[in-house]
């Protein structure tokens, strides 16, 4: 990229961030709820993007980890624990369960792994539904309190939106750092060529488990924010369709692209709202849009961008080459 592109990118990023802080100030309750939901789902999708997009391990269980995080937060905060403590527990729990779920990935790959995680997802749902002594069963848990931050109550939608947004910011920075660290490169090596990664001395076993555990932990974070956001949880939102939705978000946005989950979650959470004027047809239109997009670009929206950029760069390079060649010929 040329010299001015980087400041331009930074400026664009700052504008988007400022927009996310300022514009929602005069949103109504529902608009803020949807935006908060976008932030929460982006966190969960980022976790899945680490597991699937960077480390190449198919998981159909991210929704279950959102559920685990949500129940951990709901149970703890309704028993008087502060939310940060609940988030820590949610992370630890999802990390541990995600680590264990990673073990099948050491034995089986691709569609088999997808089916194992799919089964796990449904099992987790059954536990949420049936263990009423812990989770309230089908009646769920209500009156989940929202936290006080620096003495400010976040019961109103706007302050809580800022909590979701700042959590998203923290997670984004952490993931940005992670994928640039040696770990992130090890994940990508795992995706591109596990055999070669192993022969280069990467402990593929450990990194596979890590990819699952860290991705799942982010699902847990998202869940721990989801519970106080809705203030009421029951098992239904955490069934298999949430896992499938999250997977669709990652693929539609662009798996393996840093900004993929942001876009994917935006489309999955906001597009149905924009299509609301079509009444009952909006999910149908959403499904058709997703299929159309995947036919056009299986690497998602950012895949299109990536390809046009690459095409432009090749074009520019070949133009330069042509110029250089003609110069050489005239010089002779």
């Amino acid at each position, binding site marked *: 990229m040329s010299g001015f592109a980087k400041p331009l990118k930074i400026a664009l990023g700052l504008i988007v961030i400022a927009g996310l802080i300022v514009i929602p100030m005069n949103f109504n309750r529902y608009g803020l709820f949807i935006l908060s939901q976008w932030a929460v789902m982006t966190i969960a999708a980022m976790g899945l993007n680490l597991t699937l997009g960077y480390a190449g391990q*198919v998981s159909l269980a991210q929704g279950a980890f959102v559920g685990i995080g949500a129940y951990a937060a709901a149970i703890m905060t309704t028993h008087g624990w502060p939310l940060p403590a609940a988030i820590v527990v949610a992370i630890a729990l999802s990390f541990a369960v995600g680590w264990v779920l990673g073990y*099948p990935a050491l*034995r*089986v*790959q*691709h*569609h*088999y792994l*997808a*089916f*194992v995680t*799919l*089964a*796990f997802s*449904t*099992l987790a749902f*059954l536990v949420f*539904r*049936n263990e009423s002594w812990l989770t309230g069963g089908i009646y769920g848990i209500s009156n989940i309190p929202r936290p006080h931050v620096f003495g400010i109550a976040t019961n109103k939608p706007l302050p809580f939106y800022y909590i979701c947004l700042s959590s998203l910011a923290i997670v984004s920075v952490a993931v940005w750092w992670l994928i640039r660290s040696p770990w992130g490169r090890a994940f990508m090596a795992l995706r591109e060529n*596990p*055999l070669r990664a192993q022969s280069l001395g990467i402990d593929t076993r450990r990194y596979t488990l890590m990819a699952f555990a860290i991705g799942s932990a982010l699902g847990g974070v998202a869940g721990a924010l989801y519970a106080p956001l809705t203030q009421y949880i029951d098992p239904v939102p955490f069934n*298999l369709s949430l896992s*499938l939705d999250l*997977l*669709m978000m990652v*693929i539609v946005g662009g798996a393996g692209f840093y900004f993929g989950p942001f876009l994917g979650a935006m489309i999955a959470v906001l597009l149905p709202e924009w299509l609301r004027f079509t009444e*009952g*047809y909006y*999910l*149908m239109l*959403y*499904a*058709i849009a*997703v*299929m159309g997009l*995947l*036919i056009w670009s*299986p*690497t998602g929206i950012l895949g299109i961008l990536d390809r046009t950029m690459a095409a432009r760069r090749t074009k520019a390079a070949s133009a330069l080459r042509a110029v250089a060649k003609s110069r050489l010929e005239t010089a002779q």
Partner: protein
Amino acid sequence: MSNLFDLLVAGLATGAIYALVAVGFTLLWQTSQTINFAQGEFVMLPAFLMLAAMHVGAPFWLAIILGILLSMILLGLAFKILLVDPMMRHGVLPLAIATMALAIGIKEAVKQFFSAEASPFPSIVPTGDISILGHAVSLQSIGVLVVAILAVFGLTTLLNRTSLGHQMQAAAQNPTVARIIGVPVERMILLTFLINAFLVALASLLITPIYLAKFSSGEVLGQAAFIAAIVGGFNQVRGAIAGGLLIGVLDNLAASYVSTQYRAAVPLVFLIVVILFRPQGLLGRPEERTV
């Protein structure tokens, strides 16, 4: 003891339906590496097509024929040409995700154009009980079992005894060589899609009188067929049949001997155990692991 017998018969009947769906599922996987996450919705839709035909005045037998034909056009031909063909070269995962979107689309379309409520559906088998070895067995279970067994038997005969079937198997196992020896591979793949559409329409006809026609009923069915296909062997038709029967029986036994709350967990745990210790399925041949 009589309880166990009843459970076995009922389990075999649902299992036979699962087997039909699972066989179609494995056929698509073998010929075109399609993991069809919409398979459950494929079973749900034909019943509504038949109901729609009856709404406009067609008698039941005509509605059945129309429903099967329509589902072969929509779920066989259109599914292959509009979704699978353009996606096939992109690999397994994007296509699988596209079928997930298709599942949402079908569900929503049925909810929107038909009804969100469950509708009753006439049975092709007369209701009532007959007595076998001193046990009262519902005619419906027997009828379902007989039709499903005939369908599976017909399919295996087609695959193993006819030239067409051999060509289909060749196209599935090694498309390049099949093409060289003159098998019209494309036509064979299309044929498997049509067979799958026929099987799901048949399954729809058999299972809907038992569970009612509802837009969301595909979810449970699709998952059961998945599990059946994998447990039995993802790359074998007879594996899918065995898997279907096994899951049907297991499901029914679990409901009465384990707990109604966790009945759905038993096949899932079984699935995980099978994948971990015998990933090729109980009857499947091992696939090389793509590393």
